[in-house]
Structure formats: structure tokens, C-alpha cells
């Protein structure tokens, strides 16, 4: 009797397990992709983000309390800076030493010394190439290695979060992504077979948008578009700040763009070739990339054709960590087309979108992104801008950059994003030396004259 009851119980639990697994798999492979394809939102995202924020608040309160118990303050990341010009500071130093402010003095070295030390402790550039440090912990170990050992309760919450992210969210997202990409490749090639008519361009737009919708779902990206009335039109170039390769997908989720770039190999190349069969993107072979005139000509031709989509360009040239906007390359601003600036700001609490390309490759980056909580971002469309009379390409680029920086709340930096990998040019050091030498050379001539005068007198 007992063994029978036991067997029945076992059967029941097996049945339950079987049913739940089937339900889960159906959701994973059937329902969720269907929702994504149809672009239907079930309203879960705001509930999800609010719950997460509550959990983070609790966790941080908990950590603060524990830290207070140990009588020590949790250290927060904070920066502040104040600038006096080189001339002002050196003259101040010389004045203190009681000498004329226009001669070299041994105190001059103190200025360069202090500046250098300040930059050793904190500088404006190197921190832009690593993920933004958060003020509070968001239950991802990648953001903090010390925090998770504070208490058992916190550790339990963290483990639960880990299970949720890697056990539920990651498989779901990866499945969606693979389904989406396959679907896109097939449909895009099919549409490319059709003759070149209005129907074909209409269909290809729909296929591109569908592909983007699925990709956005697969990343759990919650995007808010602002000022849609300024959305880029077919007659210009769209420029935006660059944080991650996902930027393109986020923008293309709202309207179709033509992308510019180098033709890659492998999976990415396959996707690129599929894209271009149905819609005119501008892909270059590796050799052609160096030829600036060729690039410029193709861009101008594309923009002149009003039936083609606006070109999407990221003038920084490399991924920056979304706290600042770095120097814009002037090549896109020389063409004389209308520029549509866009600012993209990611909320770092739910997952860091920045791709640190010197640290890990694209696949690992995508896995990290898909195992974070979500990608929450805001996109601001800014009014179109044109080059003014008498303004050169560099000034125009800086003007666009400051508009984007102001809207997104970024620090506007003059430094080149290329400093991620390359050394700074000697010319900048020579500029500093020249600035300083102006504070030294003026009077040494006067001193010589005074000496020769006094020699004449005596």
C-alpha cells in the first residue's frame, strides 16, 4: 500500500514537473517571440523596473546600516574639479614668493607638480573608457566585489537575483535573439528578390523594424523616445553619442536608418549582406575605408537621394562610457548636409550598456548585457542643425557636440576618443610649453636691456 502511495506521489510530482517544463518551453519558443514579432507590450516593464528599484533601495539601506555598525563610511564615487588658468596660478605663486609676477621663479614648478598629482589621483579622460562607477550597488557582482560579503540576507537576495538572471532571463533572451536574427535573415533575403518597387521598400522597412523589435526585446531594452517631432528625415545625417553597438538597434527601433561601416566577416558579415539586399546601407570593403574621398562621395550621393533613409553616424568613432561626449570627427560635418543630432542616455542602475572593447569581445559583451537586469535608456531627438556662414567643420562639430552633451547631461570633453588606445599627441605638450614660456620670455629681454643700460651708465 505504502509503495503504491509513494509511486502515485512520484507520478504526480513528475507530472507537475513535466507540465511546468512544457509550459515554460512553450512560452520560451512560441509565445514570447510571437509577442515580440507583433510588437505587443504586456506592460510588464514598468512593474519590473519599479520592483527592481525597490530591491536596490533595500539592499543599499541594508549595507549603509551594516557599515555604520562597523563605524565606517561606505565610500562613494564622487568627483569635483576647479580650474584656474595656468597664467593666473603661476602669477599667484610668484606673488606669494615676493617677486615680480613676470619673471621665472623657483615656485613655478609647484603649479605643474600639483596639477600632475591631481591628474594621477583623478583625470577626466581615462575614466571614460571604463564602466561608470555606481553610487549604490545593483546586485550585480560585476559592479562591486566587496559588497556581497556583508550579510547573509543580502547574499540570499543576490543569489536569487543570480538565479533569476541566468536561469530565466538569459535563456529567454538568447532564444529570442536567435529566433529574431534567423527570421530577419530569411525575410530580408526574400524581400530582396522582389523587383525594385514601392512595395519592396515598404516591405523591407517592415522587415527591418520587425528585426529591431525582436532584438530590442531580446535585450530587455526599455526605451523612451522624446521629442519625436524632431525625428530625422530622409535628407540628412543622423549623429549620436556612442556607447555600445546596441545604439544602432535602439535608434533603428523607431525608424529605419542606413548604416555606414566596414564589411565584416562571419555572422556579422552575413547580417550586413542580408540587410543590404533589401535596403541601401553603405558598407565598405576594408581597403576602401582609407579612401576618404570615396567615402564622402558615397555619403553625399546617398543623402542627395530623398527616397533613401538618413545615414546614421557615430562621430566619436569609438565607444565611450556614457558619462561624457568626446571629440567628434569632422568628416561627417564637412559634407554640407543637414545634421540631426540625437542624445542617448542609459540608466546604469539596471545594467551597464558600455562596451569596453579592450577588455572583452562582442559575444561576451552580449552575454553580459543579456544577463543584466535590463537596458533602460532615453533617446532625445534634437532639432536639425546646419553649418553656419563662416563656420568651419570643426566648429560645427563642436557645436553639435555641445548640444548633445547639454541634452543628455554629459560632460563635454575636447579629448579624442582615440586616446582609448593611442597616446596623446606631442603637440598638446608643446602647447602647454608654449603657454608657459610666454610667462617667462617677456621680462628676460627687459632684464637684459636694464643690465646693458646700467652698464652704460656706470
Amino acid at each position: 500500500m505504502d509503495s503504491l502511495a509513494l509511486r502515485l506521489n512520484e507520478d504526480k510530482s513528475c507530472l507537475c514537473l513535466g507540465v511546468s517544463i512544457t509550459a515554460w518551453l512553450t512560452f520560451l519558443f512560441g509565445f514570447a517571440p510571437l509577442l515580440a514579432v507583433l510588437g505587443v507590450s504586456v506592460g510588464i516593464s514598468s512593474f519590473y523596473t519599479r520592483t527592481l528599484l525597490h530591491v536596490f533601495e533595500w539592499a543599499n539601506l541594508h549595507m549603509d546600516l551594516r557599515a555604520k555598525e562597523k563605524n565606517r563610511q561606505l565610500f562613494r564615487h564622487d568627483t569635483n574639479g576647479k580650474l584656474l588658468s595656468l597664467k593666473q596660478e603661476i602669477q599667484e605663486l610668484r606673488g606669494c614668493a615676493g617677486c615680480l609676477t613676470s619673471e621665472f621663479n623657483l615656485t613655478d614648478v609647484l603649479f605643474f607638480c600639483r596639477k600632475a598629482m591631481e591628474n594621477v589621483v583623478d583625470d577626466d579622460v581615462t575614466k571614460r573608457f571604463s564602466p561608470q562607477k555606481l553610487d549604490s550597488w545593483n546586485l550585480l557582482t560585476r559592479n562591486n566585489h566587496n559588497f556581497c560579503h556583508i550579510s547573509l540576507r543580502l547574499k540570499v537576495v543576490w543569489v536569487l537575483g543570480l538565479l533569476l538572471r541566468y536561469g530565466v532571463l538569459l535563456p529567454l533572451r538568447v532564444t529570442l535573439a536567435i529566433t529574431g536574427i534567423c527570421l530577419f535573415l530569411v525575410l530580408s533575403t526574400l524581400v530582396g528578390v522582389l523587383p525594385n518597387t514601392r512595395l519592396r521598400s515598404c516591405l523591407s522597412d517592415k522587415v527591418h523594424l520587425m528585426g529591431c523589435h525582436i532584438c530590442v526585446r531580446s535585450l530587455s531594452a526599455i526605451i523612451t523616445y522624446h521629442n519625436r517631432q524632431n525625428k530625422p528625415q530622409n535628407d540628412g545625417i543622423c549623429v549620436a553619442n556612442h556607447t555600445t553597438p546596441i545604439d544602432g538597434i535602439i535608434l533603428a527601433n523607431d525608424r529605419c536608418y542606413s548604416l555606414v561601416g566596414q564589411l565584416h566577416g562571419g555572422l556579422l558579415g552575413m547580417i550586413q549582406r542580408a540587410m543590404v539586399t533589401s535596403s541601401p546601407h553603405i558598407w565598405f570593403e576594408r581597403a576602401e575605408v582609407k579612401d576618404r574621398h570615396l567615402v564622402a562621395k558615397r555619403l553625399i550621393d546617398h543623402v542627395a537621394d530623398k527616397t533613401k533613409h538618413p545615414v546614421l553616424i557615430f562621430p566619436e568613432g569609438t565607444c565611450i562610457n556614457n558619462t561624457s561626449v568626446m571629440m567628434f570627427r569632422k568628416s561627417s560635418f564637412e559634407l554640407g548636409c543637414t545634421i540631426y543630432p540625437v542624445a542617448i542616455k542609459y540608466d546604469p542602475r539596471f545594467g551597464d550598456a558600455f562596451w569596453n572593447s579592450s577588455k572583452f569581445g562582442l559575444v561576451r559583451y552580449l552575454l553580459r548585457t543579456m544577463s543584466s537586469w535590463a537596458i533602460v535608456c532615453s533617446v532625445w531627438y534634437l532639432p536639425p542643425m546646419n553649418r553656419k556662414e563662416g563656420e568651419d567643420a570643426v566648429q560645427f562639430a563642436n557645436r553639435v557636440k555641445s548640444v548633445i552633451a547639454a541634452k543628455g547631461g554629459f560632460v563635454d570633453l575636447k579629448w579624442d576618443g582615440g586616446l582609448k588606445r593611442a597616446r596623446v599627441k606631442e603637440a598638446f605638450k608643446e602647447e602647454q610649453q608654449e603657454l608657459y614660456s610666454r610667462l617667462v620670455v617677456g621680462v628676460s629681454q627687459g632684464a637684459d636691456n636694464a643690465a646693458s643700460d646700467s652698464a652704460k651708465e656706470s
Partner: protein
Amino acid sequence: MGSRASTLLREEEIEEIKKETGFSHSQITRLYSRFTSLDKGENGTLSREDFQRIPELAINPLGDRIINAFFPEGEDQVNFRGFMRTLAHFRPIEDNEKNKNPTASEPLNSRSNKLLFAFRLYDLDRDDKISRDELLQVLRMMVGVNISDEQLGSIADRTIQEADTNGDSCISFQEFIKVLEKVDVEQKMSIRFLH
């Protein structure tokens, strides 16, 4: 994850650095975070290239001299202790420290030690005096190619003439202190370390 765990700072180390340099616990943790972000090779030490990677430091005319100050004589790597020891020179002097027991060893950020740091920027060969040649070399670093040798020479001569009191055509540390006696070194050679 594995290599990061091994470079986490231990409590005993933090206490030792606190005693030696006077930084607070949170300042040490923050500076450790900075140290590891500069340490691209992730081997627990910094090389001169790691410093040169900071663009604002690389364009500083005296950047190389400052970077050199971090490295002990003849060495190419500096660990976190050495890093903190050098930075400690720039810690602001707090009021409660001024009344401390005068027989205790001089803190790294005393006025005298700050001035010694500045003196050593000029004193290239560490022989405790600044010769005309050394002064010329440092001047050349600061002005680049913009001033002629003759002008620079006369500037160096004038500076030594004004500072030199014992007639050996070199500036000793005592003479250096005399030149800077009215300068508020405590303020000019301190940087704000946020808590």
C-alpha cells in the same frame, strides 16, 4: 574574477598605510580603486607607461619628473604602498596634526617634506644641490623649444644668483627653503582627497 580577488586590499594593509600616511580608511579604498584602474597589466604594480596613459599627465611639461618621483631609485615598478607614500606628500595638513607630539617622526605631508619633494624635482642627480645644469635642464623641459639657450642661460644665472647665499653657485635645500619661505606651501602643494 579570480585575479581581482587576489588583489583586494586586506584590512591589516589598510591599517598600516593609515599609520604611515595619515589617510583615512575610505580615502585609502578610493585610491586603491584608482590604482587598480591604472594598473592595466593587473599585476599589482604600476610602470611608467601606466602613468603615461593619463593624457593630462602626459602633456604636463614636468610630467616625466613627477612620474619619476613615484619610483624608488633605480626601479621600474611601484606598488600600492609606494604609490600611497608619494601621494601622502600632498595630503592637506589638518589642524589637529599641528599640535602633535614634536618628538614623533615627521609626517610625510609636513611643510618640510613637501618642500623636499619640490626640491627633488629640480635635483636630477639627487646630490642635494641644484646645479646650473640641472636648473637649465628643468627649465628646458618647461619651456620646450620656445626660448633660446642664451636667454634660458641668463634666467638660470639670475635665479641662482638670487638664491645662492654661500657662494657655491648651487642652490642647496636650505637656500631653497629660504626662497619659498613666504609661499603658502601647505595650500599650494596639497590636493583635495575626497572622503
